[in-house]
């Protein structure tokens, strides 16, 4: 208990915890779970956007989308590395993803049906991710906080790019406007769900707040997101698919904010439990990539060992 108190004191003093520091098992477990989920989300998140690379409507957009998907892979890489500092291997995490034991952001269980979905994902999904992640740049665990700083910078570029796709569509033909509106209709509610259950129903919230892994509650972040996003959408002529959405000048301690409708939590849990439109296809795609790639990874290992053996033999021969 003295240890726990000392640890909490370091946290309270805003000291960063580093991998070799002693830490409570629960802290380590929570971080492994959260960083792992975050990494998996980046990896699985490559799929819905990857689905449009070969059909991107212009070379410029194709290049931007390739760069974005590459960035996501990069984020996955930093995050797996951050988790590895806590004593879990990337292979282990991958197995947990493929077996369905580890979760990833449920939003990626929706399909990308039109090009506008690429805009909507950038604008809304990356926008929501940033809301979640900016506070993580000050997370108590050093490697995670540092990874987040880099990730946030790139995500905010992606968010602007996504918004710009939506803007271009809203300035385009009627078909394009319809496409953009349809994408907003489909992605808006799932984006709000990205912040997780209401604070009253959230499992891990309090302890994570105390350990400064989390710094804002789910509902606080969701409100920030709505307040930031609604004016952006309205500015380009989009209508949010929520009849209860309206400006409330009394909200946010009198600074004003948006009231919004009830989230369909049944839908949320339905998808989290694996019954969303794309859950199985996502995991199947990742599993196929992993299994089809086994011989490649084996070969890389075998070659590295051969090289090492040859280098040692050469060294001995030279002695």
């Amino acid at each position, binding site marked *: 208990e003295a240890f726990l108190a000392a640890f909490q004191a370091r946290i309270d003093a805003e000291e960063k915890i580093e991998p070799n520091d002693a830490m409570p098992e629960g802290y380590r477990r929570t971080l492994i779970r959260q960083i792992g989920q975050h990494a998996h989300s980046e990896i699985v998140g490559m799929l819905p956007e990857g689905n449009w690379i070969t059909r991107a409507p212009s070379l410029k957009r194709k290049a931007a989308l390739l760069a974005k998907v*590459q960035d996501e892979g990069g984020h996955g890489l930093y995050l797996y590395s951050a988790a590895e500092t806590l004593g879990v291997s990337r292979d282990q995490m991958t197995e947990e993803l493929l077996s369905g034991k580890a979760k990833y952001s449920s939003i990626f269980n929706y399909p990308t049906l039109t090009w506008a979905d690429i805009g909507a994902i950038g604008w809304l999904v990356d926008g929501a991710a940033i809301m979640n992640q900016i506070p993580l740049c000050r997370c108590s665990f050093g490697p995670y906080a540092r990874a987040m700083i880099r990730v946030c910078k790139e995500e905010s570029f992606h968010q602007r790019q996504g918004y710009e796709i939506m803007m*271009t569509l809203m300035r385009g033909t009627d078909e394009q406007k319809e496409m953009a509106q349809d994408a907003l209709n489909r992605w808006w509610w799932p984006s709000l769900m990205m912040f997780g259950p209401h604070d009253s129903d959230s499992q891990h919230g309090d302890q994570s707040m105390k350990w400064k892994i989390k710094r804002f509650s789910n509902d606080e972040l969701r409100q920030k997101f709505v307040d930031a996003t609604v004016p952006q959408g309205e500015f380009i002529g989009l209508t949010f698919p929520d009849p209860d959405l309206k400006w409330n000048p009394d909200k946010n301690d009198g600074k004003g904010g948006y009231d919004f409708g009830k989230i369909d939590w049944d839908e949320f849990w339905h998808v989290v439990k694996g019954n969303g439109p794309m859950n199985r296809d996502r995991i199947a795609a990742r599993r196929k990539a992993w299994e089809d790639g086994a011989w*490649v990874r084996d070969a890389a290992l075998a070659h590295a060992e051969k090289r090492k053996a040859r280098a040692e033999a050469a060294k001995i021969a030279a002695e």
Partner: protein
Amino acid sequence: MTDMNEARLALVLRLADDHLILGHRVSEWCGHAPMLEEDLAMPNMALDLIGQARSLYQYAAELEGKGRSEDDLAYMRREREYRNCLLVERPNGDFAHTMLRQLYFAAFMEAYWTECLTSSDETIRAIAAKAIKEVAYHIRHASEWVVRLGDGTEESASRMAAAVEALHRYTGELFQSDAVTDAMAQAGVAPDPASLKPAFEQTIGPIFAAAGLAVPESDVGPRGGRSGIHGEEMGHLLAELQYMQRTYPGATW
């Protein structure tokens, strides 16, 4: 003079199509690579290729002078009008095929761009200067894999050998000269492709040796890409590539 302009346009379009189509193929791997590092490397290489294709299509559009844009050229031609070599349109196959295809193309383009550094054409000089750095990375990345797979496990060695058997015969087309390349070589715009074979072999040779692969004696195989006679996979690739532009003609994205 018109003939020279036409040859220049034809040449630039060939190069542009090569890069677009190979970029398309490589991009098909995104999210499906054998390991996360390759999920980064694939879009990275595709991005280089698409970037080069853009510069080339922009130049082609300028040479053509008919007000067509890079996207018009990339998306709105018919299959028989694409002039890429057959190598770049070959289906991805397994990872060994993809890496070998990348190595072949990059080894050829490195020799090509090197000659273009002293091109009489300023735009081509500029494109070459940028591309040559990217192509060096492609060679490095692809050759590391060719060696690892060739000198890895029994399975990987046999897959790598199968890739060589399947793809080497498509390299012959790279070195083919014709009226277009002759005119451009004479004008000092771009090298005669036939002249690049020694450099290509010098790049490939040591890599194949390290990988324990034999360089096939013959590189004779199907040809026709430069006159728009493609393989049957090409039409399916184009159906994807052109989908949006064909479905929403005239829209801005």
